[in-house]
């Protein structure tokens, strides 16, 4: 592993009759937490697939550390060792009977010796808090566990970047916490994490950088700026995060607010300033 930067430059991707991406630029800095935001059908998944090399682009290029992806056999092979994509529905990615076997699929394809494969599987399961479930059949797992198995399968390739499509969709609050814990461990293990989501509250609290997909283009910036841009958010069919909404309504600065706790701190400061002003 080890962080690397990934960028898409002027990406054009179309299906017959429709251009999904029409000159999309995105930069994922090494180690940066990027949230890719957009409504369903906006092209988030298409962008992730283009960045992962799964989808050929009509024009534009994808670069890892500034080096353009070549779509030759060996070029794609190298890219896939660096960038791994995990789609939303785990059931459309898992195909083996049990957890360890599914996770070992990638390392086996790297022609590693058996003990190296086992080591990687163990490491990936550890990072995703799945070690206890290694021998369990996949169909017995919960939805949240299956999502983490799909990620473990990608992580076992030891990529520098993992792109996750809606990693928290369909998870209950405890499942979301477990997923966020796993993402934190991935980062600690020097893997750059990108998530695509339409959960604006989650994006605000987790990400440093936001990239909104609208009309085939990408608008990228600091997450608070992006999610605070009401015109952009409306065009993207998203909504303003609840805590930013409350702060704006109450007339306090939204800067630095990422979640309920930071909003509470800001409101307390405002209240104490108000009280001081009233006293003086």
């Amino acid at each position, binding site marked *: 592993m080890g962080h690397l930067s990934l960028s898409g430059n002027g990406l054009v991707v179309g*299906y*017959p*009759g429709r251009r999904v991406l029409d000159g999309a630029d995105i930069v994922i800095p090494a180690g940066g937490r990027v949230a890719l935001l957009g409504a369903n059908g906006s092209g988030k*998944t298409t962008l992730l*697939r283009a960045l*992962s*090399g*799964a989808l050929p682009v009509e024009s534009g290029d994808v670069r890892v550390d500034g080096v353009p992806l070549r779509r030759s*056999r060996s070029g794609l*092979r190298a890219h*896939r*060792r660096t960038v*791994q*994509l995990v*789609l939303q*529905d785990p*059931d*459309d*990615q*898992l*195909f*083996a009977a049990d957890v360890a076997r599914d996770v070992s*699929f*990638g390392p086996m*394809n*790297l022609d590693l010796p058996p003990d190296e494969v086992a080591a990687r599987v163990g490491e990936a399961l550890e990072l995703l808090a799945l070690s206890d479930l290694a021998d369990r059949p996949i169909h017995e797992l919960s939805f949240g566990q299956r999502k983490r198995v*799909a990620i473990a*399968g*990608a992580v076992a*390739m030891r990529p520098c970047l993992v792109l996750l499509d809606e990693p928290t969709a369909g998870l209950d609050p405890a499942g979301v916490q477990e997923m966020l814990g796993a993402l934190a461990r991935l980062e600690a293990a020097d893997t750059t994490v990108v998530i695509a989501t339409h959960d604006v509250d989650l994006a605000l609290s987790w990400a440093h950088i936001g990239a909104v997909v609208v009309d085939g283009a990408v608008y990228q910036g600091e997450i608070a700026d992006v999610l605070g841009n009401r015109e952009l958010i409306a065009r993207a069919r998203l909504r303003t995060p609840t805590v930013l909404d409350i702060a704006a309504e109450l007339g306090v600065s939204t800067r630095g607010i990422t979640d309920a706790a930071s909003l509470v701190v800001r409101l307390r400061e405002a209240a104490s300033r108000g009280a001081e002003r009233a006293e003086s």
Partner: protein
Amino acid sequence: MSGRLAIDEAAWASPWRTRPVAEKLLLALGLVACAVVLPPWPGVVLAGVCALVALLMVARVPARLLARSLRAPLAFIAIGSLTVLVTVQLDDGLSLAITEQSVYDAVVLAGRALAGTLGVYLLAATTPMGDLLASMRRIGVPAACVEVASVTYRMVFTLLVSTRQIREAQAARLGYSGYRRSVHSAGGLTAATLVRSWDRARRLEEGLAGRGYDGTLPTLPRSQATSMPFVLLSAFVIVAVAGLGAWGGGQWGI
């Protein structure tokens, strides 16, 4: 990831979508029959041109879509015609040759196949499968068979999404690098698709129980008014192509 098929999409979006199936069958199958039966010149060419004009100008199927979805059948037509083009001589050891007759046969074959394929395409790109299956019920195909086909149609698209995604996930983890691994991955993919199809069937059965599913799948039949002008014009086109083709074949038959 999409579970869409280009011709199917064209059929649902077609301006002829609401025409009765029988009308479209008459025109399309009539042209197919002309392409198969008539002497090659000018009958087959006429049938092909009529199908092409009807497709692009009247039924307004996008030309790009037509070109793209004809790629696969064209490959088969090309290989088959090349095989006919090259003749094998056995009398004097084994040797290959191209003769005047084999060139003629190959060109005629390619022409018939192309014209016929365009005729089938005229039906396929204007008639959604749902309507076609409903009309089969009307001509007396047992309900059980039509309903099985109808579930097949719906499930093709949900399964296609799964299958394409699993394949992509395997490819991302280098499952298709090299022959041995590719066969192994294809096996895993086939098994996963089979399990998904069973699972989907079981869940659909449970899901439909609440609306009274008891093994049959009745839906409201739709009536579509027959358009006499369309029928007459179609009949005229086919008779004209057939007549001209038969007469012209006798006159200038080559």
